[in-house]
C-alpha cells in the first residue's frame, strides 16, 4: 500500500523555520513507523534525523508524535494507527526541538534526577512483592501530560512512576521520605486527564500510580499542606456530611487564602443567581452513605 508520510523538519543551522516534508512510501500494514523512518532516510533524504536504538520497545529512545500521539516508533505498526490520508510524524511535545524529530531531554532528566532514582538499601530483603519496574523512560507520558507545559515545577508522570518503583520496594529505607519529596515536587498537581494511561507503551498507567501514591500519603497520615490533599479531603468530608459536594467549601478549604483569586467568578455566579448555597440540600437516605463510611 502507498502511504504519504508528512514529517516535521527543522534544521536550526540553516533556518528557524519549521517545514513539513511529504514522503510517499510503499509499505506493508505490518511495517513499523521506525522501519518507515529508516526507509525515508535511506531512500529519500539522508538528512532526516531521529533517535532510535533497540528496535524492541526496551530503550525508549524512538518516541515521536504519530498523528499527534506520543508513541514508540519501533513498537507502532501502520495498522495500529488511525489515519485517513497520511501519517503525521512530529517531535514530542513539551520539549525543545534540536533537529527534526530529535528533542532536548534536559528538563526530563532533571525531573527524573529530582526523585533520586536509585535504591537506598535498608535491612529488609525483597520477598514476593510485585514491583512494577517496566518503565523504560521513553517520556511519552510527560509529552502527553497537560500539567507539564503549564507548570515547570511539576515533576511529571514519568518521575512519579520512577519514584513509585522504589516506594514499592521493601529494600528501600527512604520510602516515607520519598512520599514527602513527591508532595513537594507536585504529586497533587496531576489534573486527572488520564492521557498517560492511554499512551504508555508499556501499559504502566502512570495516573494509577499517582492515585496509589496519594492513597499512601493519606493512609500513612503523612503531614502535608498541599491544596490538592485538602481538595480530596473536602470531597470525602462533604459527601459524608451532605451526600454531595459543597462547592463553596471546596474552594475555601482547598485554596484557603488564595480563594480570593476565585472571588470574581463567585461574584459573577451571584449576579447570575446561581451561586452555590453555603449548605447544600442533603440527599435522601444519607444515613446509607454514612453507614458505608463506618462499615467500609
Amino acid at each position: 500500500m502507498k502511504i504519504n508520510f508528512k514529517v516535521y523538519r527543522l534544521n536550526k543551522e540553516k533556518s528557524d523555520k519549521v517545514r513539513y516534508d511529504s514522503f510517499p512510501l510503499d509499505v506493508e500494514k505490518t511495517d513499523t513507523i521506525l522501519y518507515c523512518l529508516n526507509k525515508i532516510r535511506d531512500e529519500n533524504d539522508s538528512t532526516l534525523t531521529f533517535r532510535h536504538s533497540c528496535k524492541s520497545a526496551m530503550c525508549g529512545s524512538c518516541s515521536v508524535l504519530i498523528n499527534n500521539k506520543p508513541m514508540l516508533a519501533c513498537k507502532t505498526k501502520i495498522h495500529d494507527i488511525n489515519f485517513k490520508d497520511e501519517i503525521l510524524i512530529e517531535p514530542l511535545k513539551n520539549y525543545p526541538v534540536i533537529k527534526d524529530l530529535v528533542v532536548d531531554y534536559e528538563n526530563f532528566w532533571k525531573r527524573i534526577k529530582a526523585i533520586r532514582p536509585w535504591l537506598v538499601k535498608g535491612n529488609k530483603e525483597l520477598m514476593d512483592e510485585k514491583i512494577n519496574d517496566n518503565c523504560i523512560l521513553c517520556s511519552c507520558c510527560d509529552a502527553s501530560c497537560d500539567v507539564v507545559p503549564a507548570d515547570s515545577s511539576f515533576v511529571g508522570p514519568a518521575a512519579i512512576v520512577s519514584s513509585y518503583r522504589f516506594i514499592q520496594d521493601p529494600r528501600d529505607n527512604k520510602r516515607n521520605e520519598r512520599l514527602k519529596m513527591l508532595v513537594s515536587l507536585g504529586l497533587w498537581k496531576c489534573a486527572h486527564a488520564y492521557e498517560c494511561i492511554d499512551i504508555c507503551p508499556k501499559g504502566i498507567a502512570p495516573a494509577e500510580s499517582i492515585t496509589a501514591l496519594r492513597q499512601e500519603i493519606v493512609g500513612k497520615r503523612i503531614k502535608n499542606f498541599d491544596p490538592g490533599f485538602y481538595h480530596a479531603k473536602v470531597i470525602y468530608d462533604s459527601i459524608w456530611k451532605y451526600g454531595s459536594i459543597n462547592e463553596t467549601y471546596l474552594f475555601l478549604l482547598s485554596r484557603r487564602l488564595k480563594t480570593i483569586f476565585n472571588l470574581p467568578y463567585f461574584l459573577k455566579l451571584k449576579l447570575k443567581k446561581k451561586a452555590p448555597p453555603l449548605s447544600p440540600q442533603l440527599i435522601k437516605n444519607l444515613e446509607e452513605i454514612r453507614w458505608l463510611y463506618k462499615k467500609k
Partner: protein
Amino acid sequence: MAVQEKIRLAYFKGCIVDSISKELDISTKSLAKHLNIELIEFKEFSCCGSRSLPDYDAKINLLINARNLAIAEERKLDIITTCSTCTNSLRQVALELNNNLELRKEANKKLKSFGLEYKGKVKVKHLLDVLKEVDFSKISKKLVYSLNNLKVAPFYGCHSLRPREISTFPNATLLDELITSLGGSPVNYIGKTKCCGFHTLAINQSNSVKIAGINIKEAVDKNADCFVVLCPFCHIVLDGYQGEVSSSIKTKMNKPVFHLPQLLGLCLGIKPAELGLDLNMVSCKKIVERIVKK
C-alpha cells in the same frame, strides 16, 4: 411529533447542576421533553466523588458508586449523565465490579443492608450516547434551524474519552458528527481531546487556566465562532473563567460556550429562555441570532 418512542432513564444530575451549572439542567430537561426522553430523578443519588475521592479513599469511592449504580438497576433503568466526570466515575466502578466478582460480592454484602444489589446490568450513558441511540439522522430531520456552517469547536474533555476501555467514543468523532448533522462546521484542533484544567481549578487556578488556554488556542486561532462542551466542569473553565484563560494565551476570545443540550435545543427550535442561555457567562446572543435568523 416525537422523534421516537419514549425512552426512560435514571437522571444522574451530578452535584453542580442545581447551582453553578443550572443552565445545563434546564436545557437537558427541555431537550429531553422535546425528544420524548423521560428523565427520572432520584434524590438518593450521591456525589460520584468527582475522580478525586479515590485519591483519599478508594473503597468509599467504590461503595458509594456501587450504591448509585444499584439504585438505578433496582428500577431497571439505565443511567443518563450530562457530566463526563460523573460518567467516568460510575463507569470506572462498574468496570471494577464487573471484572472482579469477589469485590462485587463484598460490595453487595454491604448494599444488602439497605435492600440494594449491583448485578452488572445497568449501563451508564452520557447524553451524547443517548442522542446517538436516538439517531443523529432522525434528529436532523426535526431541525427548525440549521447551524448553517457556523464554525463550532467541539471540546470533548478528558473524562468522556479516557481511559479508552470505558469510553463509548474514544476516537473523539461523535460530537463532530453531531455538529455536522446540525449543519455546522466542526473546527478540527488538537486540543479538543485534551484537558480543560477544571480538576486543578480549586488547587492551582494558574495551572488550570493555562492548561485550558494551551488546549483551546488553536481553535481560537482558527476563528471558531463558539465552543460546545460535554461536561459542566469544562464549561466552568471555558465560559466562567474565559477572561483568565484569554489572558493566559494573550488572545482576545469572547467565544460563547454552549452545553451540548443548549446548542442542539436551539436547532430544534426550543426557546433560548428554556435552554438557560441567559445564565451562560459569555453572552450567546449574537450566535443565537445567527442561528435563529437563518
